[in-house]
């Protein structure tokens, strides 16, 4: 099979060198270092000497028994769900509209750019901006609400736990639905157009086409969106940290803010932060696995199973025959 002559493979290796180098230096080394110090007693500013705990998992046990870490896990999950459900619904709706050939929306490019816009602004800027919007006792939102007569007096929005969580979730939603939409549209454009034509000829309505053609064909893209969004959501850091420092009263303390506080504030428990990071890694890996399992192509899995059992049967047959 192998052709003799020029091999282009070496160029492939050549071009991948920059990435491999950058990965090794800037990612693999820190990951390995983090893994190691999770088992040690490393703490304190500017310290680099450490020794392993006799009980290797001391940090891990401490983190798992820490009520604040549990609280931050719950916050993270809650805020992610509050942002992801509206985000995927709106993104799907927009995708359906933009790809619907009967609607044929004008100025699609402009709309897509505008919907994507929030994602271009730095998260830090948006967080600070929202903090100023909801200022108390004086701030634009309070001023508007009082002047419109919707509130009798200024409300301390950022002092309320659910409002703060809602704000973080809203900012995440608002920043990312455009991105999700673009990915989904790309996915829809990748579906064989003859499927849509066939559906059209059979007289399917837009809704029917969406639910019976588009959605099932989007499965792999949906899996991608779900997994990336979940990883992003569980690592949520900049918005909650900058909007209200993880407050009020830890209401927007996500696991990443918790880890940051452990490592870069107060007494700098680097090792505990590393242990918490590893725990988050395991949690994310497990949840991703669960998502892959839920979103698997059930028909195909069934088919493969049948095939395998068929082959097995054949082999058994053959063995019996040879004996």
């Amino acid at each position, binding site marked *: 099979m192998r052709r003799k002559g020029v091999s282009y*493979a070496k160029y492939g*290796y050549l071009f991948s060198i920059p990435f*491999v*180098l950058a990965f*090794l*230096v800037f990612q*693999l*080394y820190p990951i*390995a*270092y983090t893994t190691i110090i999770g088992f040690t007693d490393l*703490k*304190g*500013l*500017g310290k*680099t*000497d450490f020794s392993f705990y006799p009980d290797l998992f001391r940090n891990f046990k401490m983190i798992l028994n*820490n*009520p*604040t870490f549990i609280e931050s896990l719950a916050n993270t999950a809650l805020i992610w769900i509050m942002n992801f459900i509206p985000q995927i619904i709106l993104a799907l709706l927009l995708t359906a509209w933009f790809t619907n050939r009967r609607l044929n929306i004008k100025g699609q490019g402009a709309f897509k750019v505008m919907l994507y816009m929030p994602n271009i602004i730095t998260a830090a800027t948006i967080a600070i901006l929202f903090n*100023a919007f909801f*200022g*108390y*006792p*004086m*701030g634009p939102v309070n001023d508007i609400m009082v002047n419109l007569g919707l509130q009798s007096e200024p409300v*301390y929005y950022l*002092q*309320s*736990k659910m409002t703060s969580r809602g704000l973080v979730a809203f900012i995440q939603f608002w920043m990312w639905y455009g991105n999700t939409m673009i990915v989904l549209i790309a996915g829809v454009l990748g579906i064989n157009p003859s499927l849509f034509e066939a559906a059209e000829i059979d007289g399917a309505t837009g809704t029917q086409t969406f639910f019976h053609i588009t959605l099932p064909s989007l499965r792999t893209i949906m899996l991608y969106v779900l997994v990336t969004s979940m990883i992003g959501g569980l690592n949520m850091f900049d918005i909650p940290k900058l909007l209200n*420092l993880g*407050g*009020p*009263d*830890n209401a927007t303390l996500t696991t990443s803010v918790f880890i940051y*506080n*452990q490592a*870069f*504030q*107060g*007494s*700098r*428990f680097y090792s505990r932060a590393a242990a918490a990071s590893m725990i988050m890694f395991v949690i994310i890996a497990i949840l991703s696995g669960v998502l892959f399992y839920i979103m698997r192509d059930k028909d195909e899995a069934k088919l493969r199973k049948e095939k395998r059992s068929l082959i097995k049967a054949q082999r058994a047959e053959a063995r019996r025959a040879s004996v």
Partner: protein
Amino acid sequence: MKRIVALTLCLLLMAAVVFTGCAKETPAEEPAPADSEAPADETPAEEPAEGVTDDPDVSVLNLWSFTDEVPNMMEKYAELNPDFALEVQPTIIATTDGAYQPALDQALASGGADAPDMYCAEAAFVLKYTQGDASQFAAAYKDLGIDVDTLLTESAIAPYTVDIGTRPSDGALVGLGYQATGGAFIYRRSLAIDTFGTDDPATIKGEIGPGWDKFYEAAAALKEKGYAIVSGDGDIWHAVENSSDQGWIVDGALNIDPKREAFLDLSMQLKENGYYNDTQDWQDAWFADFRGEGPKPVFGFFGPAWLINYVMASNCGDDPDTEEREGTYGDWAVCEPPVGFFWGGTWVLGNKDTKIPATVGDVIEWITLDSSDTGLQYFWANGTLNGPGGTKDTVASGTVMAKSDGTLDFLGGQNMFEAFVPAGEFANGKNLTQYDETINLYWRDQVRQYTSGEKTRDEALEAFKQQVRDNLDVVVD
């Protein structure tokens, strides 16, 4: 086959990187402390090191600060010293939300050409840089060529600034402040006349104090006139915090001083009775209250002289470009506070690894220890740093204070030194700890939880303890 070759190469690369990482770390650490300790052992206590010279290749002085005060001083320094050829590169990060410390720590720990040569620390966290977790980065003043012993006596520097700035591990002086930050109560004259019939500081001090009970009586009287006695609970917090007998940490354990715990109730009283505008210090609404633009006019603020100099003046209609003075400018006066306290202060430190120790030493000496008429503190006290007519401040040097004049137009011609110099006796380093800024952040958050009715008093205290337990290496019962 190729795949196997590629894989082995990959693994080798990985191993190489991992091991170079290890190799780099160990030797870099070993000699560093040895180097810095050697000269310290040779020179006896506070003798200035001799032959301190700059690296001629360095053309930039990196200066880290949380306000523009010290960077602005550098302009004057350059003007006074024409042969000062370095370019000053200031990095200014406000202490709001505790942002300054992590950034400074990172810069100090990373080192290199962009590391700070000189840096400032505030009272809320100065101990960390002079005595605590980050004190190893500070240069002893004597190693910068400063004749510490002679100058300390000559300038009559307030003893508490020296105590705070001395590193216990080697007894070396590593930081000094240029201000004296004893606090007073700064109030609006017009509101005082309307409520108490006079704006005389001697009478007003008897109306608002001594003690918090008298203060709240005055608050009730002001409320009848439609005034708020303070802007937010943060204003009284600084008085409460620094009048307490003990700090947050005693013998490595969290300690809630009864005076600080009482802040929960003081804050609640303000909230329930509507004695304030419910602002948070350093936020827009707080600044608006200086101008009298809040929902209720605010009677006064707790603060040291720098609050007038650095915060109030620019927010009260003092436009340095024109002669016009608008708003509440000139309507203020200073009197003795209901409880003695001090608040803030900037300590100036040099980096032990700086390449330009001689220059850094000269600048620090000029800022903190020069009591002559061309020293920073003389300009600072008399408000002449940027030409005549600037706002004045109390300074650390007794020698300078003795020859300075604290009369201010901002205070309607009152000599503010009358109130602030006696207040200096309340300034001490005894109730400070290196984690104050972080702990205060947690404490204030929980106090707000309590006053806004989200939590009971006990729940707030418990949550506060949990936050300290989580983030600090401190024993919490």
